[in-house]
């Protein structure tokens, strides 16, 4: 998209570099002159917050790796050594473990924002699907990272999740043995998880590159869901407007992050993970990290192993099909009165599933999880396709400028 200004090098070295690698003009186009819709709200700062979190996780992760040992008899002690002996180790580890939570918190807001404002609709399908891929990679990375401290929850979380693959008909058992490198989760498993936990963040960074590339081809969506028509009237340059707003969003986000690190660093963790892994004893109540709970609740609510596993993966995979499941011509939820109601029911359903995922798998909790599980799938498979056909939408403004001026 054509920007607000063009990059004109005056300095001799810059001109020399430009003729050989136009990286400065590319950065100028992408992060300075890039047209940003005028009507963006603070929900749009989570892209920058997520980029910040990815960098923060890689930086803290790389330094933690300098002190960690991926060996099943030494891993737990290595983490305790980081906590007690390594200079600033406690802070770096708390920043990294709470960073994972903050990363997921931000990505869930980013995703709900995308759903509310129909950000996945044409021409942003590929942009959205790349986002779903990033989410999957984040889940894999987060899961493997949680295994590394080799506490009871690490070990049993790894056992439960790797056993999901044993549900595959015929070859399931062989696949799990292959994943473990043994007959149960053990040292080979820890070693390969460490290798992959170090690798995947860089894969995420690469897919984020594609995600931003796709974003810059189709342009940003916005709360009114109408495209930029006149750059001067409908948009402002990325710098300073979006840059400053994103910086403020990150600062507020960092306040919460810092509160977690310095005041309640173990609030989101599980006390059982401070007990070294014991393959002979399952903790009374296995719970994954909070960010996996809704999917875990769906898994547990189905009394058939294969069906439970399929439902859990389907709950995530369905997101990729949103662009085609949502049949409404109107992009933004702002102009869809019925969709708005169902969106909030969906949000409450997701949070409810998260709560149930943390509860023991018995009695009323299982029944409630089944009801909410059906509601979760119904949102994608029934509500969204039907709503587009029957809903009477409100009039959509012709341009972003009209939408902004109508408010004043």
């Amino acid at each position: 998209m054509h920007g607000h200004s063009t990059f004109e090098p005056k300095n001799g070295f810059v001109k020399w570099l430009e003729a050989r690698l136009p990286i400065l003009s590319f950065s100028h186009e992408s992060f300075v002159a890039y047209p940003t819709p005028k009507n963006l709200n603070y929900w749009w700062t989570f892209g920058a917050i997520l980029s910040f979190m990815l960098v923060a996780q890689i930086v803290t992760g790389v330094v933690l790796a300098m002190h960690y040992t991926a060996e099943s008899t030494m891993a737990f002690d290595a983490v305790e050594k980081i906590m007690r002996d390594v200079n600033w180790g406690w802070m770096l580890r708390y920043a990294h473990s709470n960073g994972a939570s903050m990363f997921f918190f931000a990505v869930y807001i980013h995703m709900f924002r995308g759903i509310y404002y129909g950000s996945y609709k044409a021409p942003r399908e590929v942009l959205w699907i790349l986002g779903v891929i990033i989410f999957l990679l984040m889940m894999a990375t987060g899961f493997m990272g949680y295994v590394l401290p080799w506490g009871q929850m690490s070990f049993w979380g790894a056992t439960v999740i790797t056993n999901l693959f044993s549900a595959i008909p015929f070859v399931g058992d062989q696949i799990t043995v292959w994943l473990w490198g043994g007959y149960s989760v053990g040292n080979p498993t820890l070693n390969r998880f460490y290798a992959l936990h170090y690798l995947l963040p860089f894969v995420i960074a690469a897919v984020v590159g594609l995600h931003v590339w796709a974003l810059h081809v189709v342009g940003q969506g916005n709360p009114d869901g109408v495209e930029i028509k006149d750059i001067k009237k409908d948009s402002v340059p990325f710098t300073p407007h979006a840059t400053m707003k994103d910086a403020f969003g990150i600062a507020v986000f960092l306040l919460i992050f810092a509160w977690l690190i310095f005041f309640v660093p173990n609030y989101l963790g599980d006390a059982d993970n401070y007990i070294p892994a014991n393959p002979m004893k399952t903790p009374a109540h296995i719970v994954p990290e909070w960010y996996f709970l809704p999917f875990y609740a769906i898994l547990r609510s189905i009394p058939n192993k294969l069906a439970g596993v399929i439902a859990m993966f389907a709950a995530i995979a369905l997101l990729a099909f949103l662009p085609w499941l949502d049949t409404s011509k109107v992009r933004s939820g702002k102009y869809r009165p019925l969709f708005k109601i169902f969106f909030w029911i969906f949000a409450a359903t997701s949070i409810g599933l998260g709560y149930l995922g943390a509860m023991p798998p018995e009695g009323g909790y299982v029944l409630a999880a089944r009801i909410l599980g059906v509601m979760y799938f119904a949102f994608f498979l029934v509500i969204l396709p039907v709503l587009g056909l029957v809903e009477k939408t409100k009039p959509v403004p012709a341009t972003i400028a009209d939408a902004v001026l109508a408010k004043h």
Partner: protein
Amino acid sequence: MAAVGAAAVVWPLINQMSPDASTLAMASTEVDIGSIPVGQIVTIKWRGKPVFISHRSPKEIEEAQNVDLATLKDPQPDSARVKKPEWLIVIGVCTHLGCIPLGHQGEYNGWFCPCHGSVYDTSGRIRKGPAPLNLVVPEYSFLTDTKVKIG
């Protein structure tokens, strides 16, 4: 040809993840069961996994034998799961997602898996919950009346 070449290159990269020679070489385990009193379950470690050795009481044996097989999810008579009725030997790994069930718990007084609520009876058969199969009976033999070799 190219496909064969590609497969030959990829296979070592995939197969390296399978259990290595030292893991495969892990021997079988011999257990002295003479000291296990009636009604007690002992857990031993075999191939990194727990194995339950249950010295069943007459009541437990009766409960295991008097079951209508048609009501079972994974129908198997108790006699097919034991070599001697008083000794039940099963791998202590829940067939749902691999947790270790707790002994003498659950409605059938067999095992209860705390992870996702699977309930097993005194024969280690699945009776309730998400697990699809009975607890697995490993290969074992009685060397003497009080000695068992597992594996």
